[in-house]
């Protein structure tokens, strides 16, 4: 009897680990399809795809930070900072678009590296150091703009956020898919990715294998900052201006997408491909709730519950051991 119970538990865990995220996504799609007649259409999916691309791109960086055993709360203010910074240098200094974006990404890497430095060298807990950075970046974004949106953006910049490839495929969605290919390559095929999992899974064993765990930590946060900055640039294009006040919910959405995708908050574990599904679950949930006319406050309550559920599910093997 008990043996049956434990083997059921085990097989459920294995099933959830492998297909849980796809399963949840499928149930969600079926539910909203019945709940609202306009939900199930290609157009709606592409529009959801555009909405989640900002979350999805940042979630790639968050995934890496989670794997190394950290967390990055500052991706929210990075979204705002990168948006206003890239718009401002484009408008005020007349820099070409590609250069504005490049400099913004470098700034993202720089602030990310500071996060990594705080964690690895100063031994400040990741939650604290990136929370501080969240506030610092928010301050900088407001200082740069006097709290006003940065206007005067070029048409090309707006195209990055609002445009379509072949007239139907949203550019941000395309960028996100490319970034997921890049992220998958980094995590699954490069020496850096291997070392990242090694440090996150067992940092002492990694250190004794000659891996410089401090440098790895700094690099990982720098990469996370870069991805977060990229999502900020695209978001500015989408909004048509650099907005200093956005991004408050962003860390929460990004984190939930990664955890839904099976990335362990305890480090060392998780496959990035599933994070893409995690982002879709979040996006479809928002989209469906808006369609059903659920008000925003309830949406916040539900999103919080989803995060708790996602972490619970990813921790099930630990919980069932107690």
């Amino acid at each position: 009897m008990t043996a049956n119970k434990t083997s059921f538990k085990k097989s459920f865990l294995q099933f959830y680990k492998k297909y849980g995220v796809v399963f949840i996504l499928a149930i969600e799609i079926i539910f909203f399809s019945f709940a609202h007649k306009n939900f199930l259409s290609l157009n709606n999916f592409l529009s959801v795809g555009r909405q989640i691309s900002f979350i999805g791109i940042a979630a790639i960086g968050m995934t890496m930070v989670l794997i190394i055993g950290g967390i990055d709360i500052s991706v929210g203010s990075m979204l705002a900072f990168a948006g206003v910074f890239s718009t401002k240098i484009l408008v005020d200094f007349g820099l070409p678009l590609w250069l504005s974006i490049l400099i913004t990404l470098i700034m993202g890497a720089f602030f990310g590296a500071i996060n990594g430095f705080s964690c690895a060298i100063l031994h400040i807990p990741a939650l604290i150091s990136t929370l501080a950075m969240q506030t610092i970046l928010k301050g900088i974004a407001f200082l740069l703009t006097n709290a006003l949106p940065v206007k005067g953006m070029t048409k090309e910049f707006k195209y990055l956020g609002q445009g379509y490839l072949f007239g139907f495929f949203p550019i941000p969605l395309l960028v996100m898919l490319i970034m997921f290919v890049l992220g998958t390559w980094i995590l699954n095929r490069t020496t850096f990715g291997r070392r990242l999992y090694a440090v996150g899974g067992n940092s002492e064993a990694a250190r004794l294998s000659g891996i410089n765990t401090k440098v790895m930590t700094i690099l990982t946060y720098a990469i996370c900052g870069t991805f977060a900055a990229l999502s900020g640039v695209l978001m500015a294009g989408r909004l048509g201006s650099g907005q200093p006040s956005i991004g408050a919910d962003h860390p929460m959405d990004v984190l939930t997408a990664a955890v839904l995708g099976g990335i362990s908050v305890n480090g060392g574990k998780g496959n990035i491909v599933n994070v893409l599904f995690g982002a879709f679950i979040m996006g479809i949930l928002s989209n469906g709730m808006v369609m059903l006319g659920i008000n925003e406050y309830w949406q916040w309550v539900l999103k919080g519950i989803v995060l708790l559920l996602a972490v619970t599910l990813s921790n099930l093997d630990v919980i069932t051991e107690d």
Partner: protein
Amino acid sequence: MSTAASNVLEVKGLTKRFGGTTALDHADWSLAKGEIHAIAGENGAGKSTLCKMLAGAIVPSEGSITIDGKTFSKLNPAEAKRNGIVMIYQEFNLVPELPIYENIFLGKEITKFGVNVDKAAMIKKSDELFHQMGVKVDSRKIIADISVAYCQLVEIAKALMENAKILIMDEPTAPLTNQEVGILFEIIGRLKERGITIVYISHRMEEIFELSDRVTIMRDGKIITTREIGDIDQKEIISLMVGHELGMDFPVRGKTERSAEPVLSVRNLTTDKIRDISFDLYGGEILGLAGLVGAGRTEIVRAIFGADKIKSGEIYLRGKKTDKLSIHKAISKKIGLIPEDRKRQGVHLELPILHNMTLLQLDRISRLMTINPKKERAGADEFVKKLRIKMGKLSDNASSLSGGNQQKIVLAKWLANEPDILFFDEPTRGIDVGAKAEIYELMDELRSQGKAVIMISSEMPEVLGMCDRILVLYEGNMMGEVIGETATQDDVMTLASGLKLEK
């Protein structure tokens, strides 16, 4: 009989099994009121297991504990304390940020009107406790600011507060200076006068003879004998601790010529844990580092490998003086370390077997940062065959493997780097006999290939059976060198207990 009446504690058939291993095997034992009772034995003999069951820290698998006529099949820490058993562990149980008196009264604070903490009363009572012990201690000092010796006094004061009738001390003198040991002994003498029974675990022979009334010798989870201290001498204790069965076949050695010049030389190496260590390591030999836990064996190889900070001393690789190594540099200079704690330091349990095995090869098997999966697999397959690793698929997590096979993938990781110098720290701990023999064979093969090998092990037969020479350590100091083929366990144990060999 009168002894039964004066026994404060009796243990019958007490047994503890951890998984498949028996840490304590049907122990019958007793303590007389007011005696100082020493327990001696090698690492893993079961001393701590026995004491921890008395203190309620671990639950017995079988048997009973009788305290003052009351019989228990198991104790929890609170019950043990209520019945007067207090254990002082090697790692103290104190809150570093709080003053001494608050630590003594932690959880049993003296209060005014049931709410307000009465500081003055607690300080006064603490001073009284120290007075009883015959020492002067300012009980308002913060724990973090006082020395290890004082921390120990605080632990003893805490025990007195609990009205301890039986005080168990696990190697209390290990961190103390000679003078402090003297003070501790005086205190223990005073506690004895007050009728408190002391159980005293120690590796130091002189202390056992200086202090105790009786000594119990343990080996392999069994109580071998309990004797009056006047009826036994150091030599007999050591030979009883060691036992005399050798249960393992080791590869025949002596076919290989060792290299003319040392591959690795260490001069006056000093860290926090070791002092003035000097030795030479030659190619084609296995050099053993023996000693008790905490003697500094692991610390020597960690210092050379760049894992611990070196205070002073020089390291020469193939005759050339080297700067302090980082782990990364040590690896590139073809040094390898199989660490003692496999799960914490060696293997990545949540990573695939393949990724564990190739962690040191990443740069070799990749181009433009991208790993070539074919090259990776080829390298791994070779070692799976060579080391006869029993596993499912290379993509399974390392946690799916048995201890012995986990150790083999750690070995594969290091062997793939083709090291010239390899440190094995407790390579056979917690693995089955078959895998043990395979690891011995592998070490012998490395020796015959002319590699320089250091082996650290707590298992005496293994050290004697495998090593060409053995350096014996005691509390961070080198006590002497013996030859593996001719040395006896008694020789090594004598040196490891801080004594000189009589020749």
